[in-house]
C-alpha cells in the first residue's frame, strides 16, 4: 500500500511539476492576497502584526482551495477516475497518495506565504517549534479534507463554486485553532498556543481517519 500511495503522489507531483500552476500562479496570487489584506487594514503595521497569524491562514485557505480544485481537475478532465476504478490501486492508497501530493504543494505555498508575511507584515517568530507543528497539522488537515471534498465535487459542472462552500465549514476549526496557535508562536499572545496546536493535531487525525474510511464511497460509480 505504501508503494501505491507513493506512486499516486509521485504521479500528481509530476503532473504539477510539468504544469507549474502551484508555483507559477497560485503562490503569486496568494502573495497578492497578502498585499490586499494590508490595504484592508490600511497598512497599519501593529494591526498587521497582531493579525498576521489569522491572515496567514486566510491566504492559505484561498490558495489551498485553488490547489485542491486543480488536483481533481487533472483527474476528471481526462477520465482518470475511471482508470483508477479499474486499476488495482485501492481507495485508501489513492486517498493517501493524493493527500500526500497536496500536502507537499500546500506546504510549498505556505513556505512562500510565510516568507511573504515575515517580510511584509514585519513579524518575528517567538516559538519555532510551535509554528512548525501548527503549520504541519493544519496542512495535513487541509490536504485530507481537500482530497475528500475535492472528490465529492469532482466532475460536477459547478464545482468551482461548490468546493469552497463545502470545504470552508469543515476547515473552520483548523482556521480558528491555527490562527490562535500562530499568534502565540509569533509572540503576539501569550496563552494556550500549544493547546491549540494539539487540538489541530487531533482534528488532523480525525479527518485523516474519516477520509481513509469514506473515500471509497466517493469513487464508486453508478
Amino acid at each position: 500500500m505504501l508503494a501505491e500511495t507513493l506512486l499516486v503522489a509521485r504521479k500528481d507531483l509530476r503532473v504539477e511539476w510539468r504544469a507549474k500552476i502551484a508555483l507559477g500562479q497560485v503562490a503569486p496570487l496568494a502573495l497578492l492576497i497578502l498585499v490586499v489584506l494590508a490595504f484592508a487594514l490600511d497598512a497599519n503595521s501593529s494591526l498587521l502584526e497582531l493579525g498576521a497569524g489569522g491572515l496567514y491562514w486566510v491566504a492559505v485557505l484561498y490558495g489551498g482551495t485553488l490547489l485542491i480544485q486543480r488536483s481533481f481537475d487533472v483527474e476528471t478532465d481526462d477520465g482518470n477516475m475511471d482508470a483508477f476504478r479499474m486499476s488495482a490501486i485501492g481507495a485508501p492508497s489513492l486517498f493517501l497518495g493524493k493527500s500526500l501530493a497536496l500536502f507537499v504543494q500546500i506546504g510549498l505555498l505556505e513556505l512562500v506565504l510565510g516568507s511573504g508575511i515575515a517580510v511584509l507584515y514585519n513579524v518575528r517568530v517567538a516559538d519555532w517549534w510551535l509554528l512548525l507543528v501548527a503549520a504541519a497539522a493544519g496542512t495535513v488537515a487541509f490536504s485530507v479534507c481537500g482530497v475528500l471534498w475535492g472528490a465529492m465535487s469532482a466532475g460536477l459542472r459547478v464545482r468551482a463554486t461548490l468546493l469552497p462552500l463545502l470545504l470552508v465549514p469543515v476547515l473552520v476549526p483548523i482556521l480558528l485553532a491555527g490562527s490562535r496557535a500562530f499568534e502565540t508562536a509569533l509572540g503576539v499572545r501569550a496563552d494556550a498556543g500549544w493547546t491549540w496546536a494539539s487540538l489541530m493535531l487531533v482534528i488532523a487525525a480525525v479527518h485523516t481517519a474519516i477520509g481513509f474510511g469514506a473515500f471509497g464511497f466517493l469513487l464508486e460509480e453508478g
Partner: protein
Amino acid sequence: MTSVTHSNAKMTATATTRVLGVLAIAATALMTVLGLLISPADVIQGEAVRMLYIHVPSIWIAYGAFVLTSVSSILFLRGRKRREDRGRHYDRLAGSAAEVGVVFTGITLVTGMLWGKVTWGTYWQWDARLTTTVLLFVTYLGYLALRRLPADPIVRSRRAAVMALISFVNVPIVHYSVDWWRTLHQKASLSVGRRPEITGEMYWTLLYSTLAVTIVAAWLIIHRYRVIRLEELRDEETLAALISSRLDKDDGSN
C-alpha cells in the same frame, strides 16, 4: 409504480397527512395564543422571553432533523446494494429532513438575533452557540446545494450521504473549538447571555411549543419527501421519453 394511483385530488396529500396538516395548523394557532397572550412575561427578560417559545423548539427540531439526515444517510449507504430501491427511500428522507432542518436553523438564527437585540442590546455575539449554529446553517446549505446538482442520481446521493456523515461528525468539533475560543479569551461576555429560569406556565408553554413545532416539522418532512419522489419520477420519465424519441426517430413517429 405501485404507490401511485390516478385521480384528480391533491398530489402529495393522503388522508393521514391531511389530518396531520389540520392538526399542525391548530397546534400552531394554540401555540400562538399560549405563547403570546396567556403565558406571563418573565421577571428578568420581560416580553422578550416569548421569543424563546419559537427559538428553543426550532433548534431542537433542527438538530433532530440533522440526526435524521445522518441516520438515513448511514442506512442509505448500507442498503444501497441490498435493497430493491437501492436505498433511495433513505436518501429522500435524508434530503427532506435536511431541508426542513435548514429552515428551522434559519428561524433559530433570526429569532435568536432579535432576542439578542432586546436582551443583550446587540444582534450578534461571538458566543459558541451562535457561531456553531451559523456554521451548521451554512454546512447544510452546502449539503442541499450538492443534492441539487445535475448528476447521476445514485452517485450524487452517495456523495451527499458521505457529506452528511462528515458534517455531522464535524459539528461537535466546531462547537468544541469555538467554545474554547470564547472561554479562553473573554470569560466576562458569557454571563451576558444568562438564561432565565423557566418554570411553571412558561415551562409548560415551552414544552407545548416543542410538540406543536414537531407536528409542523413532521408534516413538512413527509410532504417534502413525496415531492422529492415526484421529482425523481419526473426525471426518470423525461429520460425515458428522450430515449424512446431517439429510438423512434428511424420510423419517423418522433
